[in-house]
């Protein structure tokens, strides 16, 4: 398969790109306001019908502005300030790093964005370097452009009445590094993306933490349309996404073959939209009555699609799901399609009538939605287009990566973006001196791993994981702050505990990490308690202290431990446990009582000591 990467990575400047706000601060209060964006249809460029429909509806967008993280600039109430010079410098450094040609003048452009994520209605972006290369083992990957751009607002809520964005991320400086397409397999693809990511991280110019690096991956098979997958935040996702897409797209190639075999032609897709409301009203299926409510049931014939909607070439990938996602763009909760119509308990007579009205023949399918008005017909027209595209294999579209590494349909791929010069910002001269001197001394990945392993006395493998992780800075700060806690313990919290929490959708938090390490270093709780306490604290948004109080997890002394072990041992005498099993039994019972209250190593020592004593005295 062919793949290309667009890597967006957040620069760790003290201020945003076009104002004096520090994105790392914590807001003490917020205000919100409502806006509408206006783009006349001639100015929209080639945007998809769903987005055009949204704009036409004149939906209003709500913005939340915090007192520290955003100001009048992000509210689009003040012109942008001069671009942050640190960010410009970093962009030139990275362009040099990839041996890119650097422009002599940086021109910021306005790229029209219609989803409301930018208050201005456009994203400010500029090319700094182009035509560079990244050398990966024996391969040379072309870097087509290095752009300096502003991040968008953070979607807080997809409200019924329009989206809500927080402005804290708007204007944060990002570098966008775009590679040329390469022919590779999923494993190589992951290595390329990881290689570029690691190189960038080693420069120290970028922020770490979840969401500070995002990859868009472009994938295509054969000569079919390019699918853009957005929102890949973790490196491990890339390989899965590539594997998923390869299988999914190959299945769509197969679909086109099947349709051809079934002798389906473009003209077969031109059937009229059929109203089935009266037929379905007569059904006794409660599910159908609930879906129907007081709306219309409208169906579209899908020629040759029988059996093709429900087939899953890879888990979570079905054409039916894609069509449902497409209908969601128009506000529908989902669709009903022919491959699953039997699940709805509709009477055979009605099913036959539906079939007749839709003029279905062998191998034909249909899709059905419940709704009224313009959005219903617009939605079905877009679905018709998608069905017709199936004749020609995988179409160009934009998809969203899921946490598990699958992808979901997001929207048809937009055409070329509308761009025009940002006249509020003067062009920035890049002198030959700047090009020559803005460079960074890079150490190799291996030596960076060595440095961390040596400095914190941790295994190389752990050091490498830390370098790759989002939490390197938290780790180093914690390791320096809490010298009494072994670095391996801290590393395992940020690498394992945080990862497990992330899988369950619980976000890591620096304050909680430092709170709990502080308690461990004071001996108030044992290190074994960290995972459970953090989980409870972070999942329920309560302080570490409260969790410990609630659980009665204050620590116990070695004297108390001795007593507990002695008493359990005494109770167990009657049971005549075999000698070789006694350690396991006693240890288990003791740990049940003291877990998290005292270091496990001390428990182990004490249990062994008392058992030995017991057998010696016997």
């Amino acid at each position, binding site marked *: 398969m062919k793949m290309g990467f667009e890597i967006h990575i957040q620069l760790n400047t003290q201020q945003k790109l076009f104002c004096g706000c520090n994105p790392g601060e914590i807001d003490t209060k917020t205000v919100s306001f409502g806006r509408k964006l206006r783009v006349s249809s001639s100015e929209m460029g080639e945007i998809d019908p769903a987005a055009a429909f949204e704009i036409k509806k004149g939906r209003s967008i709500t913005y939340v502005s915090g007192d520290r993280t955003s100001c009048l600039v992000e509210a689009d109430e003040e012109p942008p300030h001069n671009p942050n010079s640190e960010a410009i410098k970093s962009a030139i450094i990275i362009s040099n790093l990839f041996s890119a040609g650097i422009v002599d*003048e940086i021109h910021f452009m306005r790229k029209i964005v219609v989803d409301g994520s930018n208050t201005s209605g456009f994203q400010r972006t500029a090319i700094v370097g182009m035509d560079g290369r990244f050398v990966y083992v024996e391969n040379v990957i072309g870097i087509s452009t290095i752009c300096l751009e502003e991040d968008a607002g953070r979607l807080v809520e997809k409200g019924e009445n329009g989206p809500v964005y927080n402005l804290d991320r708007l204007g944060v400086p990002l570098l966008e590094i775009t590679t040329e397409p390469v022919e590779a397999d999923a494993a190589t693809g992951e290595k390329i993306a990881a290689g570029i990511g690691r190189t960038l991280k080693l420069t120290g110019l970028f922020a770490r933490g979840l969401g500070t690096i995002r990859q868009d991956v472009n994938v295509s098979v054969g000569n079919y349309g390019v699918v853009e997958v957005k929102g890949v935040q973790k490196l491990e996702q890339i390989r899965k996404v590539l594997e998923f897409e390869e299988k999914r797209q190959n299945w769509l190639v197969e679909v086109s073959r099947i349709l051809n075999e079934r002798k389906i032609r473009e003209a077969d897709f031109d059937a009229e939209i059929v109203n089935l409301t009266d037929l379905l009203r007569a059904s006794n299926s409660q599910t159908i009555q609930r879906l129907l409510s007081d709306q219309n049931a409208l169906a579209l014939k899908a020629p040759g699609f029988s059996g093709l909607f429900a087939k899953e070439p890879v888990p979570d990938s079905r054409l039916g799901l894609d069509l449902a996602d497409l209908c969601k763009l128009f506000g529908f909760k989902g669709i009903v399609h022919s491959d699953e119509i039997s699940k709805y308990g509709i009477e055979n007579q009605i099913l036959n009538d539906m079939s007749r009205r839709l003029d279905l023949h062998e191998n034909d399918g249909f899709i059905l939605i419940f709704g009224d008005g313009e959005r219903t017909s617009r939605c079905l027209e877009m679905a018709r287009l998608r069905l017709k595209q199936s004749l020609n294999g995988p179409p160009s579209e934009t998809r969203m990566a899921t946490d598990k590494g699958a992808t979901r349909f997001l929207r048809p791929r937009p055409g070329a973006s509308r761009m025009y010069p940002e006249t509020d910002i003067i062009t920035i001269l890049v002198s030959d001196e700047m090009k020559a001197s803005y460079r960074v001394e890079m150490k190799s990945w291996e030596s960076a791993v060595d440095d961390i392993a040596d400095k914190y006395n941790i295994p190389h493998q752990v050091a490498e994981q830390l370098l790759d992780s989002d939490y390197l800075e938290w780790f180093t700060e914690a390791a320096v702050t809490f010298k009494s806690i072994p670095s391996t313990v801290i590393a395992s919290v940020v690498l394992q505990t945080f990862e497990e929490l992330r899988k369950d959708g619980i976000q890591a938090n620096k304050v909680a990490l430092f709170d709990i390490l502080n308690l461990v270093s004071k001996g108030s709780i044992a290190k074994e308690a960290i995972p459970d306490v953090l989980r409870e604290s972070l999942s329920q948004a309560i302080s570490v202290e409260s969790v410990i109080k609630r659980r009665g997890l204050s620590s116990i002394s070695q004297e108390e431990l001795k007593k507990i072990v002695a008493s359990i041992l005494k109770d167990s005498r009657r049971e005549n446990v075999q000698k070789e099993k006694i350690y396991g039994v006693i240890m288990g019972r003791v740990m049940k009582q003291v877990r998290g209250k005292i270091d496990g190593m001390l428990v182990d020592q004490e249990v062994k000591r008392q058992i030995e004593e017991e057998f010696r005295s016997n």
Partner: protein
Amino acid sequence: MVQQIKPGQFVQLEYNGRLLEGLVMPRSLYEDEKHITLKLKNGYNIGLDSGKVRLVKVVEYETPAQPIEEKSYNEIGNGPRVLIMGTGGTIASKVDYRTGAVKPAFSAKEIVDMVPEIGNIASISIKTIMNELSENMKPENWSVMSNEVYKAFNSGYRGIVIAHGTDTMHYSASAVSFAIENPPGPVVFVGSQRSSDRPSSDSAINLQGAVTFAAKSNSSGVFVAMHAGLDDNLVAVHRGTRVRKNHTSRRDAFESVNDSPFAYIDIEKGTVKQENETTPQGKIKLMPNFLAKASIFKFHPGISESLANAVFGGDLLSIIIEGTGLGHVSREVFPHIRSAITEGKFVGMTSQCIWGSVGMTVYETGRDLMAMGVVPLGDMLSETALVKSMWALGNGLDLGSVMPLNLRGEIATRRPVEK
């Protein structure tokens, strides 16, 4: 070979051993001539040192499109007849994504195409009466506006909207307020704080607000309609003599000073919320002349004697002082004021506090100044007082008696507790 590269050419260039393709763009006045701007196929512009590029070949040459100056006065839309006058700036405009140039709308059709909502509110005509940036407006321009408004009412328009740059919009609104007595309907100035070449522009909402007020309100007078807050829904309508631009960039920069806004327009609902009514007290009367022999003297600690001398001893016929607090200046300025008044010049007092009225009987300084003949101007804005005195001078009125009178709502006898 640099001279071969010209704007409008689609070229192939060699730059640092790399081959680039793109459209050569015109350079703006503020950019140097050492560089060229190239629009790449991906839409981005980049700047290249023209000394370092080598032209490989010109792929094609586009002839620059001629600007279309289509002027159409045809009415478009349904409802009461409203005339939109253009004075410069851009009421509505669209971007040419190829060149980045902003093309203003000239015809009624174009403007209704861009803000279709106004076609449902009123029957729209459009007329461009001048083409001046707001900062370049002069009293002569106020006269032209006033004459045009008078003509428009006489030819049967119900309301008039004047699109204007925001920097001096409140001066112009004040000027037309004085120049037209008893307008039969509303005259509404409107502008935008975010240029109309961006999707987030406030111009469309403001224009809808202005047209709604011009079409629906029965009030006689001159107003300014602009955003009431940061939200894209509520538009505030201010009295032309009471309004001031109080922020450099916010959408809600225009505020009524010492007064509540005259009305609010809810754009979504299309409704006018207005507590008071102003009805014409007689036939429309035009007094469109202004004489620019007046100025504002802003007093400050450490004021230069020579400046005071130049202002009060020069050829100005009316000087509006922006005094401190309740209306004061330091003793050093007294002799200059005294001699100006002795020479028959008008000297009026306003406050640099912006909010509140002058009160010249409270302190000795104020009483001394009044004894000299300085006229306290109540809570009139200094900018309004300036325009009013230019108008009074231009139309041969006696400033001493006209200036302290409330003619167009510019002076109030009471100021509500709530701002």
